[in-house]
Every structure is written in structure tokens, then in C-alpha cells.
């Protein structure tokens, strides 16, 4: 009984506690913002791990899909619910924002999933480091497209998303942004877990081991690759949508190669093909970045140095390709996570 519901219960407690503390203003906005970016990072690293870890490809343009999600969900949201220079008065009554918000984020995710086709279709024939270049190129292409659409600000960026958040808070007085980030983070991890442990998802690992053998064993590799790339980039799009609403401003420059490499580092720090590793490394990485702030310029020497040293001692990342339950078998008694 306890084993069955322990994960649900502990998640609900942690989430409820954070939201309660935020609502009562025991947790400062600074901590809340760090926690929210932590959530975004968790979604990003787990979703990239799907491609880089489980499927064994080397994608290094993840921020591009994040950009698509961020722009689509913010444009749609501002068009529907906010006053804006570009779109004019809101189409719908802002009081419905609360109900529509998860849909907005999901639509951003779906749009990003379709942008994922940009990589998925070439991946039928192109593999390995050649595919890495395609992901890089698609990152550049996406940014360049957005920079060239003058109507949505181009490189001047796009804003107005804060109105939706205040509309939500007006409707029901709760810190909505942390709530949504929390819910979507849990949703994405759950989705990943279900996807990987499904029969269909076993095909992903099969492709990683040996693509030709998998095909002979009647695994439809092209279909699996397409869907995996779409799931991965769709989740990046969700992360992007949340990122845009947390900031209240998007700019194509925020989604460049540097952002992609940051996500890459998180994935390999946690360990390839380890879901709990990705979550853990995203949390550690975010905290590390905040804690080392006082070092200023030196910070960016210390962090890579720490990571290099870590790699020397654990050349397979924090968790290797194992999950938390594999390292501490006793833990399995207490939870069941599906």
C-alpha cells in the first residue's frame, strides 16, 4: 500500500510544501526563481537524455526546440489573453487564462515536437556525428528564422507574458508560475519514465545498442526515431514555454549554442540513460551555479574544473546508466515508480 503510493505522496508533500511556503512568503522570490529554473533544467536534461542517452545519438541543438516552444506558447498566450502592440486587445476574456495556461504550454510543446522533424527526418539515413551537425544546424536555422520575423520583434525580443500571470493570480491568489513549473516537471518525468519502460520504448534502447540488429528484429527504427525525437523536442518546447513565462520576455539570443551545451553538460554529468541521474545533475548544476556566484569570473573556471575532476573519478557520470533504485536496492522496498 505504502509502496504503491509513496511516490505520489512524497511528490504531493514536497510540491504542496513549496507552494504553501511560497504563498506565505516564507520562501523568498529569489529562491523561488532558482527553484523554477531548476524545474526547467530538469525537463531539459531529461528530455535530452532521451536522445543522447537512451537512443545514443549526439544531439547538440536542444535549445533550438526550446526556442520554438517558448515563442509559440508566448505568442499564442499574448494573442489570446493580453493587450499587446502587435496583436491588439485580447481575443478572449483574460479570466480564462488560468484554464488555458497548461494548454498554451502544451501547444508550445507540440509545435516544438514538429520542429523536431527537422532533425528526425534526416536521422533516417544520417547518423552519429553527422546527425550532431544537423542538430546544430537546426538550432542556427530556428534562431535565424525568428530573428528575421520583424513582426514579433526579431532580435528585439517579445514580451507581454507577465499580463497572463497577473491575470491568473487575480483569478485565484496563488503563486501560479511555481505551481505550473512543478506540475509540468512531474508530468515530463512521468512521461519519460512511461515512454522508456513501455514496449515501444524498449525499441529506443535497442537502437542505441545496435540499429541494424534492431531492424532485423522487426523494430521499426524510423518510426521509433521520429517519435523519440518528437517527444524529446516536444518536452524541450514545454521547458521553453515555462522559461518564457518565468522571464516574461523572450529573445532568440537566449537559445543559442551555449544554452544547448549547458544542457549537454547536465546530461553527461548525470549519466547517459539514467533518468534519476539527469534529475539529480540538473538540481546540482543549478545549485552550483547559484552558490558559486560570489566567485564572479572565476566561477566559470571553477565549474568546468570541478566537472573535469568529477569525470576523472566517475567517467560515466554521477549515476552511470543506472537509476536510483539500482544503486540502492533497498529503496525499492519503499517506492514503485512507473
Amino acid at each position, binding site marked *: 500500500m505504502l509502496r504503491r503510493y509513496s511516490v505520489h505522496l512524497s511528490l504531493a508533500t514536497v510540491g504542496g510544501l513549496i507552494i504553501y511556503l511560497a504563498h506565505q512568503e516564507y520562501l523568498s522570490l529569489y529562491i523561488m526563481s532558482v527553484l523554477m529554473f531548476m524545474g526547467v533544467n530538469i525537463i531539459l536534461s531529461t528530455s535530452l537524455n532521451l536522445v*543522447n542517452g537512451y537512443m545514443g545519438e*549526439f544531439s547538440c541543438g536542444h535549445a533550438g526546440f526550446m526556442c520554438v516552444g517558448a515563442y509559440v506558447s508566448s505568442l499564442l498566450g499574448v494573442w489570446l489573453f493580453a493587450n499587446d502592440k502587435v496583436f491588439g486587445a485580447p481575443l478572449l476574456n483574460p479570466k480564462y487564462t488560468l484554464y488555458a495556461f497548461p494548454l498554451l504550454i502544451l501547444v508550445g510543446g507540440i509545435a516544438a515536437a514538429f520542429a523536431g522533424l*527537422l532533425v528526425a*527526418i*534526416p536521422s533516417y*539515413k*544520417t*547518423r552519429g*556525428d*553527422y546527425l*550532431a*551537425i*544537423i542538430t*546544430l*544546424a*537546426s538550432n*542556427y*536555422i530556428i*534562431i*535565424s*528564422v525568428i*530573428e*528575421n520575423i520583424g513582426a514579433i520583434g526579431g532580435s528585439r525580443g517579445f514580451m507581454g507574458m507577465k499580463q497572463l500571470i497577473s491575470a491568473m493570480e487575480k483569478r485565484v491568489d496563488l503563486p501560479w508560475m511555481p505551481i505550473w513549473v512543478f506540475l509540468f516537471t512531474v508530468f515530463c518525468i512521468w512521461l519519460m519514465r512511461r515512454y522508456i519502460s513501455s514496449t515501444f520504448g524498449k525499441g529506443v534502447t535497442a537502437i542505441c545498442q*545496435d*540499429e*541494424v*540488429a534492431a531492424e*532485423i528484429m522487426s523494430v521499426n527504427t524510423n518510426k521509433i526515431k521520429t517519435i523519440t525525437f518528437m517527444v524529446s523536442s516536444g518536452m524541450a518546447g514545454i521547458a521553453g514555454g515555462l522559461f518564457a513565462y518565468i522571464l516574461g520576455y523572450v529573445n532568440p539570443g537566449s537559445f543559442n*549554442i551555449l544554452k544547448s*551545451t549547458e544542457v*549537454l*553538460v547536465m546530461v*553527461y*554529468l548525470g549519466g*547517459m540513460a539514467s533518468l534519476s541521474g539527469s534529475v539529480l545533475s540538473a538540481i546540482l548544476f543549478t545549485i552550483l551555479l547559484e552558490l558559486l556566484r560570489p566567485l564572479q*569570473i*572565476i566561477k*566559470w*573556471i571553477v*565549474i*568546468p*574544473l570541478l*566537472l*573535469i575532476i568529477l*569525470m*576523472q573519478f566517475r*567517467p*560515466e*557520470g554521477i549515476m552511470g546508466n543506472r537509476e536510483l533504485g539500482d544503486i540502492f536496492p533497498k529503496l525499492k522496498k519503499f517506492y514503485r515508480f512507473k
Partner: protein
Amino acid sequence: MENLVQNIINALQWGSFYALIALGYTLVYGVLTLINFAHGDVFMVGAYIAFFSATFLLTTLGLPGWIALALCIPLTMILTAMVGVTLERIAYRPLRNKGAHRLYVVITALMCGLILEHANLAIFGASRKAFPPLIAEHVYTIGGVTFTNLKIAVIATAFLAFMFLHWMVTKTRVGMAMRAISYDKFAVPLLGIPLDQIIVVTFILGSGFAGLAGLLFAMSYPVLEPYMGALIGWKAFIAAVVGGIGDIRGAFLGGFLLGTVEIMVVAFFPSTYRDLIAFTVLLVILTWKPTGLFGIAKTTKI
């Protein structure tokens, strides 16, 4: 017409830098299948080493420009090669010996690049450095087409470097050992070929030419800053892969291809669409030829 010729010269010069850096990528990749993401920053370090040696030779020793240049070239190449070898020795080799997945070595390389960038920023400050002119620059205009002696020198150096490396890899014993390692890393030491030494030689060659590229780059675009290697490094990597990574000819052609595409897109389309069109072209090339221009399709054994 004049414009076209002018742009071809522009493209050759710009492509030369991509080609020189891509050569370093491809050498290391060919031997170790390691994407050395620190290579762009090794190039940056090369430019800084060139800056400091040139300033030292010109102002402290008071040598005339051409002697300074002649001394500067070997000095930069040797010192930059040392930086590359140091990285290999302290960061990559231990990981390789532990049998880490090759992508962890790639991430380590990425981290090494970050350290080089920010160490530079922390030590020398954020001020940009102006590279002293080593040789007098002459602008020649023939039939409406303008070029400088420096541009010609850059293009010529790129070709010479390519020919040297191509000769080195195909005709010498070291080159043969390099090719052998890229075929089979495990059998090669059994045949008495010193694996680590050959890898060191590879890094010396790759980083040395990155240093040469840094020197030429600093002479052509005399504004140095810590992040100057990052973007050009990524793009040279792209060029190397499009050409077919692991192949010297591929890297060389890929570099010129990327340079030409970038310049020609700007020349004949609105320049705001440069990245869009240039990268779409590359994407199409890689979809059409999945192993690049010169890459050999690997037959997978079952």
C-alpha cells in the same frame, strides 16, 4: 562580374581559416574519434600567443617586422602545440585509459575550452587586444577587384598546410601509424606502434596548425578577445563534418565550402538570411550525403 570575382577572393580567404581549423579537428577525430571541442579555444590561445610573441619581438627586442614574423610563426606553432598536448595529457588521456565513453571525453573537451576562455578573461581582463602590424599591407586593385598581400598569403598558407598534412598522413610512417590507429585502436599497440606517442604527434600537428591559423587570423582581423575562438570553432567543426570528418581532404574542402556558402549567401541574398540559408544548405547536403562529401559509408557488421 567584378563583384563575383571579388566575392570569390573573399570566400577563399574566409574559407582558409575554416579549413585550417577544421584540419585540426579532423586529425584528432580521425585518430581518436574524439570531437575536440576545445580546438576553437586552442586557436584563440594561439592568437594570443602570437600577440604576445609579436609584441615582445617588435617592441622589447626591436626587430624589424619581417624577422619578427619569421620568428613568430614557429614560436606560435610550438607554444600552441604545447597547449594542445597538455590538454591531451592531463584531461583526455586519463579518461581514455579508464575506458570512458567517448562522449564523456567530448564533454571534458568542452569544459577545457571553457577553462581556456575564462582563464584568459580572468588573467588578461576584458580589454580587447590589437595585434601589431607585422608586415606592411598593400592594397592591389586589378580591374575593379581588390585584394591585399595578406589575403594572398593566407590562402597560400592554407593550401600549403593542407598539402603538408596530406603528405604527412599518406606518405610518412607516422601518418601510416595514424591511419592504422583509426582502423583499430586495439590491434595497433600489439604491432609495436606506440599508441600514446602517435596520439601526441596528432595533437602537436592539430594544435600547431591551430596556432598558425591564430597568427594569420590575428594579422587579418587584428582584434583579439577571449571568446573569439568559440563561434569559429563550432563552425569549423561543422565544416569538418560536412566534408566528411576524419578525412584531410574533407576538412579542407568543407572549410572552403562553408566559407563560400556564407559569403555567397550574403552577396546574392539579403544578408539577414545568412545563417538561415547557409545552414539549410548544409542540412540538405548532410541529408543527401549522410557521411559528408568525403566520408566513407561504414558497413556495419552483424
